[in-house]
């Protein structure tokens, strides 16, 4: 029973959400919205499990004085600081001027922006390694990447504009690659994904793919 009921829920809900797309009549028109709200409510409950797990593991690390346990203290303190500031702020916790906002602007934002920004370095080192003319495929990758890169910055304006060209060769080539061969590849990938998704969704709804429920009784 512990396994059958969830399978029935999955099948019924899944099929209901497929057919609601075709039925404009109420109540079907509200299914998606309602699910979206329910999902967010369930996720908001589940995050307690995650947060407790993070805190538990950090506390264990500190208690047992494992390697680098000092940093776990920082994790716990930071978490508590943010949580307290957020709860103290009430509904308007994000209003400019609150403690939560200050932490957000001066700590959270620079951290996440910098983490994102170091991608600039990684993209350079990855392209140095990957863009080598080793075989047909790799050469195509290299050439396409190279041309698009050139077309997207000012090389046209620097090299060709002084010649009095009103034609922008690099940009044109770059646009051509983006609009045609790139689009073709994207489409093949997209249609493939559509079929993969449809098939996976079907297996889930039919109860053939059920490992997400775990095992046992």
């Amino acid at each position: 029973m512990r396994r059958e009921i969830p399978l029935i829920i999955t099948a019924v809900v899944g099929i209901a959400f497929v057919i609601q797309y075709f039925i404009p009549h109420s109540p079907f028109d509200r299914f998606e919205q309602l699910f979206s709200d329910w999902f967010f409510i369930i996720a908001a409950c589940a995050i307690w499990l995650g947060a407790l797990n993070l805190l538990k593991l950090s506390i264990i690390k500190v208690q047992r004085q494992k390697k680098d346990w000092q940093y776990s203290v920082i994790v716990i303190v930071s978490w508590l600081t943010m949580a307290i500031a957020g709860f103290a702020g009430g509904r308007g916790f994000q209003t400019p001027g609150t403690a939560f906002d200050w932490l957000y602007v001066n700590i959270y934002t620079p951290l996440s922006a910098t983490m994102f920004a170091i991608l600039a370095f990684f993209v350079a080192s990855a392209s140095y390694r990957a863009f080598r003319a080793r075989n047909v495929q790799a050469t195509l990758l290299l050439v396409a990447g190279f041309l698009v890169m050139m077309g997207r910055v000012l090389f046209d304006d620097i090299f060709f504009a002084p010649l009095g060209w009103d034609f922008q060769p690099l940009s044109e080539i770059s646009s051509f690659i983006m609009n045609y061969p790139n689009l073709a590849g994207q489409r093949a990938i997209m249609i493939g994904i559509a079929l993969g998704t449809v098939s996976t969704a079907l297996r889930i709804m039919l109860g053939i793919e059920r490992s997400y429920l775990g095992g046992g009784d």
Partner: protein
Amino acid sequence: MNFDIGIWIAAFLTLGIMSFLYKDNPWYKISEAIFIGLSAGYWFVSLFWQNLVSKLWDNLWPALDALFTRGEFTGGLLYLIAGILGLMMLMRLVPQIGWISRWPLALVVGATAGLQFINYLVSNGVIQVYNTITPLFGPVSEAGGIAPVTDVWHGLGNALILVGTFTGLVYFFFSKEHKGFFGGAARVGTWFLMITFGASFGYTVMSRMSLLIGRLDFLVNTWITGIFT
């Protein structure tokens, strides 16, 4: 000198994360630990106010109020189910009845399967098929006949799209060995995939550079400049 503690902290953390590029070090570890704790707290609080309070409470409370004070059944009562599902999820904390959390999970997975079945079929399937069915040789004239190729590049491009989509899809066939003609087509398909990857990659390099420019702009124009003004 204009001292703003916020800017100094921001600069300290920015450089802390960047120091990871050289190698792992205590400065990065401090920044990382702050990041994990603070961001986990951030989402914890955000989900509480934006989901539990503004979605569950705000919908449920008026409905319960209406039910008990006026005896009316309103649509908001449906959120009672959501609340119960959320509680079932929390039952994970009690090992004996943890299995009940499979119910909300089953609901989430089922709805996701149903919704994405449709969404992907429409946007990635039907619409892409529709877009691929275009005349090869320029626009069709109004009389219904074939118009001359007005633009060589456009005609060539359309042909490329067709060949690329076709061979690209052949590559994704699982139940046939990539041999002979079929193998040749699949091979051409991988060429197109490689061009796609190369193009997206090249396009992205710029994007990533601009993000770094944003951070350097902060360090140079806000922090360092701030010290000297």
